């Protein structure tokens, strides 16, 4: 069943095979953990968003109109959960804390100065406006086209292009000093 399409697995879950849902979890959690982590800036919130997205997807599985594209549907749920969690986090007194463990893990097998560069990237990313960060990640990290991004976010293509452009400008500005160091 591991090699089955999303549609086959969704059909089995809808027939009562709840354990089949684990395959979907294992299939998508890595890619989507990356997005949630970069959007929310820490592992705890990212895991909360992921868990929330998966359980909401399970609850609404019968309303998934195209089970073959379960992954895209789940991603839309996750994007919305990240927006909600991000907004909630924004209301709290928030100090950006770098997830040291993630940085150490990411730094394995790489040059010694990689940590500092990665830390600066994470810091700069969190300084972007939420909508700019979202657009930048979808475009450059998840490699989406603007039409797909528009479908996912419900935002017009022109507005998305503007957000990506502003995000790039801001990142260049924030990281230019680090880059030339």
């Amino acid at each position: 069943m591991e090699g089955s399409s999303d549609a086959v697995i969704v059909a089995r879950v809808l027939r009562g095979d709840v354990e089949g849902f684990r395959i979907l979890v294992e299939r998508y959690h890595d890619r989507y953990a990356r997005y949630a982590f970069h959007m929310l800036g820490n592992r705890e919130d990212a895991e909360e968003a992921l868990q929330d997205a998966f359980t909401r997807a399970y609850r609404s599985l019968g309303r998934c109109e195209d089970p073959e594209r379960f992954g895209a549907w789940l991603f839309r749920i996750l994007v919305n959960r990240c927006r909600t969690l991000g907004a909630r986090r924004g209301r709290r007194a928030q100090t950006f804390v770098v997830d040291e463990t993630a940085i150490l893990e990411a730094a394995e097998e790489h040059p010694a100065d990689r940590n500092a560069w990665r830390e600066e990237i994470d810091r700069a990313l969190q300084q972007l406006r939420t909508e700019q960060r979202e657009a930048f990640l979808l475009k450059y990290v998840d490699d989406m086209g603007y039409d797909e991004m528009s479908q996912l976010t419900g935002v017009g293509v022109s507005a998305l292009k503007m957000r990506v452009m502003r995000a790039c400008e801001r990142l260049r500005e924030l990281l230019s000093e680090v880059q030339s160091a």
Partner: protein
Amino acid sequence: MHDQRDPIESIARELRRPVQVSVSLDDRIMGEVRQLPHYGRLKLWLRLTTPRTITITPLRVGLAAAALAMFAILGAAHVGNDIWRVATPIATAMFPSIKKPAPNQRVQFVLVAPDAKKVSVVGDFNGWDVAHAGYQAQHRGGGVWSVTAPVPVGHHRYSFVVDDSVWVADPTAPRVIDNDYGMPNSAIVVSEQQK
């Protein structure tokens, strides 16, 4: 140390690296998912709770009348001559002025659930215990499940549990929402018997 030209590609390359999550995350997700009603059982739940448009025809009215008559006969056969034992909890709740069951009177709970394999009654009067022996409904035929069980005088909340997993409020009784669990519950008022 990294791309000295436009940093955007260098940033994107860095951000595309996998992010580690807790090894227990999958188990936590599945643990939460297992707590939710399973889909095979949800179908029954949806059939019972989804509003449907019913077209009234003389034939349907006749069938409905026949079903009600059969239901009354089944109930009467089960509880003997005491008509109050046939009355559903809603009768007690809606008509408090008429003759009521005695204190701790036995009350008959009835649910129509054609696809059910098991039906239990849970409520604050039995500790919401789905396995309580005295509150297991019996299939009376035609998808009709019923049990006659003791309920103390007073206000109570209760629900049916189908196949040990799906909570179904009594469709004939006033509905209340249990704030603790968000499950649909029904209300019942059991009064002392009038002399």
